[in-house]
């Protein structure tokens, strides 16, 4: 049985369509990632799946149950879920232990406070006020409150946004341990690295729709090449010559695709060692001067850019 199955999901706010007909299946024991820029509809989607927002249209099934049944059944379903919301601020004046104890009291079967604090490595902060915790510790506490019910399915909405790299890795470890124990996860993120690291499958969302779906490897492979070469030209002051056209670039050996962006041009290439010398030779012939040249392995970020022509993060 699938952990989550939804079809034809639609949600409108006034005249904005947040979710525009979305189909999704998350298998049991899978870690599934919803990727996309801010405003893509990720949070609306996950909150519909969590039963917190009613969709305008569509069908949702979570762990084989629906949100539209009676209160008792809904409560029974909530017993089996762990949910972390994007913008919850837990009470500042309660201690870590008091907060976990409070959340734990809502569930019939739950981890002990000790167990769950060990899961998120917050034992030392047991008696600290929530208001005194660092961002990463607060986030781990939020995940602790989601894990306390021993959920079968964990929802995480941008769990690591705004955290430093070390806190982020600590949270990844927490999620890794939950999965190792057999849990299913649905998470949203706009960090590609996070998705590649954690997720078995990802769905890339844009404007309320899924525009690509697959394993991170298969999505990257869909670019047709593994490397990305980015370059930018100097203003050309003092040097004659003009920038090369897209056609010329595409014709270079090993180049699969050309994506002009605002301040640079990105080439998806199969073999860097052939493409780069050819590019340099072409620029030399044109008399153009480089101001930037960089290469990296293709990432989900490149997949998003190639699909939408936009950067994923607008910062």
């Amino acid at each position, binding site marked *: 049985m699938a952990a989550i199955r939804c079809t034809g999901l639609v949600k409108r706010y006034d005249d904005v369509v947040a979710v525009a007909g979305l189909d999704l299946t998350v298998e049991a024991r899978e870690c599934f990632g919803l990727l996309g820029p801010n405003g893509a509809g990720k949070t609306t989607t996950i909150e519909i799946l969590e039963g917190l927002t009613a969709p305008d249209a569509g069908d949702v099934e979570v762990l084989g149950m629906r949100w539209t049944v009676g209160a008792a059944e809904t409560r029974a379903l909530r017993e089996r879920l762990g949910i972390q919301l994007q913008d919850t601020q837990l009470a500042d004046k309660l201690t870590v232990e*008091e907060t976990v104890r409070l959340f734990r009291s809502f569930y019939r079967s739950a981890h002990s406070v000790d167990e769950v604090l060990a899961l998120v490595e917050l034992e030392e902060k047991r008696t600290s006020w929530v208001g005194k915790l660092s961002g990463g510790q607060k986030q781990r506490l939020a995940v602790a409150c989601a894990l306390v019910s021993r959920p079968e399915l964990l929802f995480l909405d941008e769990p690591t946004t705004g955290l430093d790299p070390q806190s982020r890795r600590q949270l990844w470890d927490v999620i890794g341990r939950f999965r190792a124990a057999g849990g299913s996860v649905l998470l949203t993120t706009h960090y590609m690295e996070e998705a590649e690291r954690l997720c078995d499958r990802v769905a890339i969302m844009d404007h309320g729709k899924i525009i690509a779906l697959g394993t991170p490897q298969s999505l990257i492979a869909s670019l047709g090449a593994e490397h990305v070469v980015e370059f930018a030209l100097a203003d050309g002051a003092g040097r004659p010559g003009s920038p090369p056209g897209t056609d010329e670039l595409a014709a270079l050996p090993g180049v699969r695709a050309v994506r002009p962006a605002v301040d640079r041009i990105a080439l998806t290439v199969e073999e860097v060692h052939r493409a780069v010398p050819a590019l340099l030779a072409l620029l030399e012939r044109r008399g153009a001067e480089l101001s930037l040249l960089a290469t990296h392995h293709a990432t989900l970020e490149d997949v998003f850019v190639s699909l939408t022509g936009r950067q994923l993060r607008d910062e």
Partner: protein
Amino acid sequence: MSDHPLVQLSLARMREFYREPEAVFWVFGFPIVLAFALGIAFRNRGPGELRVAVLRGAGDSVVAAAVGRAPGLSPVVLDSTEARLQLRTGRVALLVVPGAPVVYRFDSTRTESRLARLEVDDALQRARGRIDVARVTDERVTEPGSRYIDFLIPGLLGMNLMGSGLWGVGFSVVQARTKRLLKRFMATPMRRSHYLLAFVLSRLVFLFVEVAALVGFGWLMFRVGVRGSIGAVAAITVLGALSFAGLGMLVASRARTIEAVSGLMNLVMLPMWILSGTFFSYARFPDAMQPFVKALPLTALNDALRAVMIDGSSLAHLGGPLGIVSVWGLVSFLVALRIFRWR
């Protein structure tokens, strides 16, 4: 048992409250400070000592001595300019010019001055040898419960029940809503009734402390007693606290921001601060307003508290005001449940 959600939610409410020093002051400290200040300012002094000026000149010390022997009069010998100034500004009630005849200079429209004239004349005549022909004795009475502080303490109790009920519930609910904590709770199997009941339970615990502090202070400082039964006072305060918790729930049921709920809260409380007879009797308002004033929950609560504390009434005679308090609480709570925004 201690892991029951209702217990945990109530504990959380109480912890959040007592870990906020400002909130603790406004609920417990402020009414006591207010009672103290007002109790001192309006303590019953009776007419007090009357200051009487004696004009400097021949015979002033004899006159001053005669006046000084009379109880309730306090003479000062002053120069002419200073005496006129003090008389004009009301710092002395009367100016005595010694001589033959003795002249009393005073403003006859001031009660105090006329009283001073009578007392001073009496003292001077007796000093010169007048014999009273009829034998009289004074019998002084101070009726317990008739002082301003006796009126004030029950009123402050009522006002405090209103304030802490509305703020305690309303503010916390809206804060939980703006912090998305309410939504987070909705994502658990928590029962909504438990969430709301926890407010009521934690209110009742603090209520006990609140009432004990104010009533205890009134007794220790001003000997303000409870004429009726303590049980009746307890029952009325519990009912009042529940009613205002319901009203607080209603005020907070839709508001999304602290600013919005603060505005609503003041809108609800301000009329009652003024109209409900906390600091002065609402009988001073025009007759046409009386039905409206009496229908306010704080008016009814204050009336009930005063009836028990000052007049010693029993609950059986307070059906009217207690009915008003109950109806307000019940209706607010039911409406709040229907329109409550849970996220």
